[in-house]
């Protein structure tokens, strides 16, 4: 099930991109006919924002920082002189 969902992600993202373009193409006409509601505008903005998850919108991967070795403190000096 999870594998099928992961495999479907690219097509879902492609679908979002196509959907954004389609909504944009009909929005102006919908506004002129007073059928474009605030809820539709909110949904449109959410859809546009979700397009940012597509691979082409991700910046180059930054190499992971190398782990820093723990600082070795010198062994405590025994000051108890007997």
């Amino acid at each position, binding site marked *: 099930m999870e594998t099928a969902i992961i495999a479907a992600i690219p097509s879902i993202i492609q679908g979002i*991109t196509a959907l*954004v*373009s389609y909504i*944009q*193409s009909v*929005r*102006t006409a919908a*506004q*002129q006919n007073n059928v474009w509601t605030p809820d539709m*505008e909110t949904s*449109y*903005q959410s859809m*546009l*924002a979700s*397009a*940012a998850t*597509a*691979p*082409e*919108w*991700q*910046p*180059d991967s930054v190499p992971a920082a190398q782990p820093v070795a723990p600082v070795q403190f010198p062994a405590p000096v025994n000051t108890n002189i007997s």
Partner: protein
Amino acid sequence: MKKYLIITCCSLLLAGCAALAPGTDPIVVRAQQTETVGYATLDTFLKVDNANRSLFATNAPALHQYAEWLRAPQVVNGTNVYPRGIAFMLSLDTIVQQYQKGLANSNQVANVLATAETAITQAQWYISSMGATSLTNQPAINTK
């Protein structure tokens, strides 16, 4: 790939020729047309760069640098973080909404519109130049 780019460029050019319906606000229509063309342009440009990032980074560093500039995360509305290209479109959409509600004036819309158009024009230039062997004569843009 070349056929895809030609079709995209033609559709982008034709989108700007749409007739203006009577009674519509020209700046709103222009902003929405820019938003539509802009999203398609930036998405196409980034898709092509994403197809072979290492090639463009080596052979056309300015192009790849511009793609990375569009991908750089930006804070929108105080809390949300989006790539700069998406942030341009969201900002344009938000200012148009405010303008339609009387909360912003046409100069503010024009300013956001000009910023978005500059970014889109640069991406269009890179798309049209992708078939060229040299990308050394690209116009300078301040990506700082």
